[in-house]
């Protein structure tokens, strides 16, 4: 039943399954229809469901994201694709001031089954305007939920869960993961949408991450094992809400935490993760929680500098090594 697929294919199948199951589900964005989506996520859906359910839009991110909000208020299930997270800056009023607040401001009268999908992150030399991450901005908005699938299985589960939910949900997808492979079993019972997953058990130190850097952290941990550092890796799978219990349980075991994220370190998502876990596990920690994050610099176009501006497997290993040794007598 399980088969190997690319992450975009898992998303594509999830879209198809939900559109098939519920005719109030529809999707739109730039080039999602005829073209099939920049990252192929909506491939073939136009031919199958027609233009009203799979709609190419003008370049009007603020307007069409707001369109999703209005449609959700009457019970439609819009799935907005913002071509990349970078353009979502133009749609933040719709997301923050409308989608996240209408259910609250109306005293709980309106549903908001809105899904906004946005590819993002540092890809391959797309330069500063096309390499952003908005985690921090969205996390700070009560009323929004955020999922960050890093594997095809999670992509399949989380997109379906998001579409089925009546709350507004942002899917932050990573541009470099669409063409990554993984097993997908569509018959498996899904785990809760925001449950964190321990990708690798370990006892010396915990790495907490999400999205693409969770995969890098996993690779780093596998290699660190060879050096005798037994590392636990947690993929948060989402950023709002955060599954603190899974994290706390891990720290109770390892007493050391490195938070890994691609986002700029200063006021990035990692700040919240580090702050809360330090607060809650303070007396359990053998060393301060460390953050290994992107540099606080707009992403340079030059490839070498771009690569040096975000965590890599080896930089994660180095940060982990230091943390594993911190405070330990030689």
């Amino acid at each position: 039943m399980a088969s190997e697929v690319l992450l975009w294919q898992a998303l594509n199948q999830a879209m198809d399954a939900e559109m098939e199951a519920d005719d109030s589900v529809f999707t739109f964005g730039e080039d999602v229809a005829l073209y099939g989506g920049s990252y192929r996520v909506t491939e073939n859906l136009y031919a199958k469901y027609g233009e009203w359910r799979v709609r190419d839009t003008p370049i009007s991110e603020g307007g069409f994201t707001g369109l999703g909000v209005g449609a959700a208020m009457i019970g439609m299930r819009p799935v907005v694709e913002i071509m990349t997270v970078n353009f979502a800056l133009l749609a933040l009023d719709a997301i923050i001031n409308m989608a996240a607040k209408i259910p609250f401001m109306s005293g709980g009268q309106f549903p908001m089954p809105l899904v906004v999908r946005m590819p993002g992150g540092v890809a391959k030399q797309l330069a500063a305007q096309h390499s952003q991450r908005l985690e921090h901005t969205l996390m700070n908005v009560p009323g929004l939920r955020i999922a960050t699938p890093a594997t095809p299985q999670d992509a399949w589960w989380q997109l379906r869960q998001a579409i089925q939910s009546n709350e507004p949900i942002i899917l932050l997808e990573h541009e470099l993961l669409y063409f990554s492979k993984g097993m997908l079993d569509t018959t498996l019972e899904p785990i809760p949408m925001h449950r964190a997953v321990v990708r690798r058990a370990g006892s010396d130190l915990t790495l907490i991450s999400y999205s693409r850097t969770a995969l890098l952290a996993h690779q780093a941990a596998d290699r660190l094992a060879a050096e005798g550092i037994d590392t636990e890796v947690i993929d948060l799978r989402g950023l709002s809400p955060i599954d603190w219990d899974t994290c706390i349980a891990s720290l109770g075991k390892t007493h050391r935490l490195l938070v890994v994220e691609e986002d700029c370190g200063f006021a990035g998502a990692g700040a919240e993760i580090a702050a809360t876990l330090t607060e809650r596990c303070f007396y359990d920690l053998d060393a301060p929680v460390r953050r290994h994050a992107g540099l606080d610099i707009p992403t340079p176009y030059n490839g070498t500098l771009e690569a040096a501006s975000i965590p890599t497997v080896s930089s994660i290993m180095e940060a982990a090594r230091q943390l594993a040794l911190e405070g330990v007598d030689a």
Partner: protein
Amino acid sequence: MKRNILIAMLRDMLLARAFEERAAREYTRGNIAGFLHLYPGEEAVAVGVLHAAEPGDYVVSTYREHVHALVRGVPPERIMAELFGKRDGCSGGMGGSMHLFDRERRFMGGYAIVGETYPISIGIAYGIAMRELPEAVICFFGDGAVNQGTFHESLNMAALWKLPILFVCENNRYQIGTEIHRHSAVTEVYKRACGYRIPAECINGMDVMDVYKATQSALQRIREGTGPQFLEIETYRFRGHSMADPGSYRPKVEVQAFQDEDPVTVVLEETVPDYPSAEHLSTIGKDNIEHLSGHIHREGFLSADQVERMRQEIADTVEEAVQFALNSPEPNMDDALAALHSNRGQEVLI
């Protein structure tokens, strides 16, 4: 026009005026806080437009929306309670003056960020069109709101996909203190619609019957499937922009500035307001409501006595609304959290 429609419209206009004037008083008394944007002078717009609409149509409004909600049938006491921030308010006390909502009556909200009504409206209309339903969306906005990017984006999409929306510009010639010729390169707002091939006309908002008729035919065209329609309705607001605004920029500041002998005078000359004078304004007060009641009189639809009785009933209604609001309990933090998580249901998140 039919007698009962005219009478119903007169009643709503009187109610609107009385409700708003009372809200102003309750604000002064401290029962209402925040920003309070009132509607006196503009009644004919909400009343004419919404009486021409069907109950199945959706209404999307701004922060100056009490009267839209009232005319739509949201009970006055639920609105007043919302202004008071009470639990029985139509938004449970969470929204306040700028965020009235009533799902049952398809009153889709008051929005406080200028320009939000457009995308909300095209979203609802998209759902209607996708389902091939006969309903329409009525989207209200001011003259100042016409310069927001969402206007452009939404009108383009509405026209491109022939969505069933009636765009209604309440042109009161002012964006807070900035007069229309100082905020818009084209002051005939309806001309903006031509960039999207949306049929548009300009209506005298002092005559509720004109507004009603224009809306009726526009809605009919929409239901025939011709796509969005656009009405610019010329109107006036008698008060300042909100209760926090004395409105002094209108004649006083300007006049005073003209007297100065400095180089700015030239500049200011270009900004001479063609807004009516304060005196003129105070007489216009009659127009909107008196225009209609004059007509009703002449046609012999209602006697002076009957109108007086109507006024009295309305005064009672408004008084009851205030009492209801005063007596309604305050919401508590659990109510707030329930509103925030109202869409969670049985979902297990973690």
